[in-house]
């Protein structure tokens, strides 16, 4: 304990010194932000420069990010999925009967799906994008679990449906990159026409990569939830089911 105070004081002083040596907040020095803000809209016709950066300027980097997501989902699946062959028996849960809750739930599911689709579809024009939109979409589907029952939710935790769709999202990104290679250009070259600025048809492959990311994120989140749900909901012994 006697050593703690001097250590805290010393390190605190060093930290304060380091922070005081940084450029002041708002005193931006890097060239890249200023350059990208000038060139992305004229060159790529996407008005959301953040998404233009994510899916074009550093598109290869985002592909790596998508595979981090993919690898992590695989990791969770391998850790939690029960391959022992024992057939799991569904625990019967109480069905939520309150009409008010169910009504609010339906509104939330519908509204959430709408907002999520909008965020994904217009992600490269207005604030949004495949990543946040995908999370909102999967969140809207999870509300179905909250206000419905296991039966209502069961299509969204079927691994045979979720696994391929997640792969389509991650693979679609790579295929878009390979299409450029086939056309004789470097990987992930934006080879589709850039369209008119500020419309859904703008950005060329940015829109496709954005959609692929949206699909990948939506189903990655649903897969993660399905795996946790399967572990969390303790299966009943077969003889308990009849009672």
């Amino acid at each position: 304990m006697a050593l703690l105070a001097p250590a805290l004081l010393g390190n605190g002083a060093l930290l304060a010194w380091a922070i005081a040596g940084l450029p002041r907040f708002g005193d931006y020095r890097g060239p890249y932000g200023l350059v990208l803000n000038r060139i992305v809209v004229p060159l790529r016709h996407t008005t959301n420069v953040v998404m233009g950066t994510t899916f074009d300027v550093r598109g290869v980097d985002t592909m790596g990010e998508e595979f981090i997501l993919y690898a992590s989902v695989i990791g969770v699946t391998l850790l939690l999925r029960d391959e022992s062959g024992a057939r799991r028996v569904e625990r019967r849960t109480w069905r939520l009967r309150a009409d008010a809750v169910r009504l609010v739930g339906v509104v939330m599911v519908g509204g959430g799906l709408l907002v999520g689709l909008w965020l994904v579809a217009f992600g490269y024009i207005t604030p949004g994008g495949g990543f946040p939109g995908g999370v909102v979409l999967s969140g809207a589907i999870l509300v179905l679990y909250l206000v419905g029952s296991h039966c209502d939710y069961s299509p969204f935790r079927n691994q045979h449906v979720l696994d391929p769709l997640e792969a389509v999202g991650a693979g679609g990104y790579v295929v878009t990159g390979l299409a450029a290679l086939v056309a004789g250009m470097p990987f992930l070259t934006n080879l589709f026409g850039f369209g008119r600025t500020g419309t859904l048809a703008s950005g060329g492959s940015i829109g496709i990569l954005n959609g692929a990311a949206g699909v990948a994120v939506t189903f990655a989140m649903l897969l993660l939830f399905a795996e946790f749900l399967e572990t969390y909901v303790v299966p009943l012994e077969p003889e308990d089911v009849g009672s």
Partner: protein
Amino acid sequence: MSYLPYAVAAWLCLVGLAGVATSRNLIHLAVCLTVTQSSSYVLLLSVGYVKHGKAPIFKGVPLGATAVDPVVQALTLTDVVVSVVVVALILALALDAHRLSGTVDPDEIVDVSG
């Protein structure tokens, strides 16, 4: 005031690390780790802030208007995604640890075998 965001980032990072170091519960540890990771969001976004800059989205905004750095915003997006999946992985490991040893206290999980 002009150094406050950096100080906030440093504080979030340190307080999260302190939580991880003293944690007695793997779930609590995962939450502390997200606190530490959120310090990187604060740091990245404050590094890219341009005085009086708006969001780098030029829908209905004339090109050339002062806007903040889009690169750090894209990096923050990556950061958030990685943070979420890392937490998912840690929670899955915590569930496994609980199934094998019956506890989520790192100090009580003594029986570590392959």
